[in-house]
C-alpha cells in the first residue's frame, strides 16, 4: 500500500475577466461600466496521486491544467473543494509544505538574469535553510546528472535556453522536494535538450522517489515519462488512467506503412484497410490490432514489398480524437 501524496476532491477555481467590445465606443463603455464574466478554469475535479508517481496533465490551451497545478502548489486560492498535498492545505503555504514542494515553469525564470546561477543557488540555500554540506552534495549530484558543471559561474543571460533550463532545475531541486510540479518544462527547447530534460526527470523520479506532476503540450514528454495521464478539457477531467489503456480504447488499431517495389493501384489493396496516406508506391493503413499478423502475411505474399513497418498510432492523433468527441 503506497502513500497518498495528493488528494483533490471537487476542486473549483473561477476567474473574473472583464469584457470589452472592440473600438473606442467599447472602451468608453467599459470605462464607465465594467462588465465581468466568470470563467470556470477548473470546474469540480477530483483525483488522487500516490508517492513516487509520475503523472502527465494534458489538454488544450486554457483547459485548466496550469490552474490545477497552481492550486496544488499553493499559488491560487480555490473557490471550492478540498485539496491536500502531503497532508497539508496548499493555500495556507505553511513552511512544512513549501520546503517539500517545488514548481518549475518553462516560460519563467527564478534565476537572476545578470548573475551566474551559483548566486541564485546560494540565495535558495538560505531561503530553504539548506546545510552547507547538503548544499554542496546536492549541487554536485545534480550538476553531474545534468552535465552542467562548467556553466555555473557564467551569467545567466549568456546561457542557452537549454542550459538555463538545466540551471532552473537545479535551483528548484536544491531543497530535495518530495513533490515536483512542472508546467511546460520543455517549452521552447530543441529536440536534444527536450530529450535530456525527459531523461533527467525520469532518473530523478526513480532515484529519489519524488512525486512528479507535469503539464505539457508535447505528447512526446507524456508518452516517454508518464504511465498515468489525466486529460482535462474545459475545466473537467475527461480521462484519468494509464496511457496504455487509453490508447487501446481510442485506438484499437496500428499503422502499417508499406513501400512497394513499384507503383500500385489503390483499388487493389482496399481490402487491407482504410488507406490514410497514399503516394504511388507508399501506402499507410489503419489495421485493427487482432488482424495485424494475418494482414501482414497476406500483404507480403501477394505483393512485392520493399519495406514494411508496423507502428502505434501517433498519440497526438488519439488525443485529438478524444477532444473531437
Amino acid at each position, binding site marked *: 500500500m503506497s502513500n497518498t501524496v495528493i488528494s483533490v476532491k471537487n476542486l473549483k477555481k473561477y476567474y473574473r475577466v472583464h469584457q*470589452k467590445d472592440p473600438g*473606442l465606443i467599447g*472602451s*468608453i463603455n*467599459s*470605462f464607465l461600466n465594467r462588465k465581468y464574466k466568470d470563467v470556470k478554469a477548473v470546474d469540480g475535479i477530483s483525483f488522487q496521486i500516490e508517492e513516487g508517481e509520475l503523472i502527465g496533465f494534458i489538454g488544450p490551451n486554457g483547459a485548466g491544467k496550469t490552474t490545477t497545478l497552481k492550486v496544488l502548489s499553493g499559488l491560487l486560492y480555490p473557490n471550492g473543494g478540498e485539496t491536500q498535498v502531503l497532508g497539508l492545505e496548499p493555500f495556507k503555504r505553511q513552511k512544512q509544505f513549501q520546503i517539500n514542494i517545488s514548481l518549475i515553469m518553462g516560460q519563467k525564470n527564478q534565476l537572476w538574469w545578470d548573475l551566474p546561477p551559483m548566486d541564485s543557488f546560494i540565495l535558495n540555500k538560505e531561503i530553504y535553510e539548506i546545510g552547507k554540506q547538503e548544499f554542496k552534495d546536492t549541487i554536485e549530484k545534480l550538476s553531474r546528472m545534468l552535465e552542467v558543471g562548467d556553466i555555473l559561474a557564467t551569467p545567466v543571460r549568456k546561457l542557452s535556453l537549454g542550459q538555463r533550463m538545466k540551471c532552473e532545475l537545479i535551483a528548484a531541486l536544491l531543497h530535495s522536494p518530495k513533490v515536483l510540479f512542472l508546467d511546460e518544462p520543455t517549452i521552447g527547447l530543441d529536440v536534444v535538450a527536450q530529450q535530456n530534460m525527459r531523461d533527467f526527470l525520469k532518473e530523478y523520479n526513480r532515484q529519489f522517489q519524488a512525486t512528479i506532476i507535469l503539464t505539457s503540450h508535447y505528447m512526446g514528454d507524456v508518452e516517454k515519462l508518464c504511465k498515468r495521464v489525466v486529460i482535462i478539457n474545459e475545466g473537467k477531467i475527461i480521462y484519468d488512467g494509464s496511457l496504455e489503456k487509453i490508447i487501446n480504447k481510442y485506438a484499437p488499431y496500428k499503422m502499417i506503412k508499406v513501400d512497394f517495389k513499384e507503383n500500385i493501384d489503390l483499388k487493389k489493396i482496399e481490402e487491407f484497410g482504410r488507406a490514410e496516406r497514399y503516394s504511388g508506391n507508399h501506402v499507410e493503413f489503419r489495421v485493427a490490432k487482432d488482424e495485424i499478423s494475418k494482414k501482414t502475411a497476406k500483404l507480403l505474399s501477394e505483393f512485392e514489398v520493399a519495406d514494411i513497418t508496423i507502428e502505434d498510432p501517433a498519440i497526438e492523433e488519439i488525443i485529438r480524437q478524444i477532444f473531437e468527441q
Partner: protein
Amino acid sequence: MSKYWEIFRITWQQFLIYRVNFVIWRLRTIMQLLLVYFIWWSVFKSQVQVFGYTASSILTYILAASLIRTIVLSSRASDLIDSINTGSIVNFLIKPLGFIRYFLTRDAADKLFNIGFFIVEISLLILLLKPPVIIQTDIAILIPFFLSIAGGLIIYFCINFIIGLTAFWVESSWGVLFLMSVFLESLGGGLFPLDILPKNLFSALMLTPFPYLIYFPAKLYLGGMNYSEMLNGFVVIAIWILVLILLMRIIRDAGFRHFSAVGN
C-alpha cells in the same frame, strides 16, 4: 493620414483601459501644483510684494505654468526607449509608418487627453481656492503666448526624442530622461519664475532651451514683457528648434544604421 488617426485612436483607448493609471497620473499633477501654489500663497500672507511680484501675479503665473506643463510636458518618449530595448522598433523598419510621425501622433493624443482633464481640474481648483487670477484678454499677448507654447512643445518633443534615440547605443537612457525631467523641474520655471534668480544666472539660463518650456510662455501670459525681450525669446526658440530637428534626424538615421548593422 488615416493610419495616424488610427494610432491616435488607439492611444486614447489605452488611456481608457489603464484608467486607474491615468486618474492617478492626474492626481499627481494636482499635488505637484498644490505644493507650489501654497508655498507662494503662504508667502503672500505676510507680504505684499516679493521680487516684484504680487500675490495675484505670482499665483496666475503658477496656474499658467501648470497649464503649460500639461500641454508641453506630456509625452510618450519613454515608449521609444521601450521599443528600442525590446526590439519592437523593427516594426518601423518593415512597415510603411513614419517613425517620428508615429510618436508625434501619440504625443498629440496624450496632450489632448491631458488638456481635457486639466480644464476640469483647474476649474475646480479656481472654484475652491478662489485665487486672484489675472484673466488675460489682450490678443496681442495671447497670440505670442500660444505661439511660444507651440515652440516649447516642439523643443520638448525633440529633446525627449533625442534622448529616447540614445537607447540605440547606451543602456542608461532612462537615467538621461530622469535627469532631463529634474532639470526641467528645477530650471524650467514650474516652481518659481526664473527672473527671481541672480541676474547673471538668469541670463545664462535664457540661452538654454529649458526656460522656453514653461517660464517664457507663463511670463508672456502675465503681460508686461517688452518687445525686445519677446523678440529675443522667439529668436532663441527658433534657433533651438532648428538645431534640435536637425540633430534629431541625424541621430535617427544613425540609430537605424546602427540597429541594422548590429541587430539588437
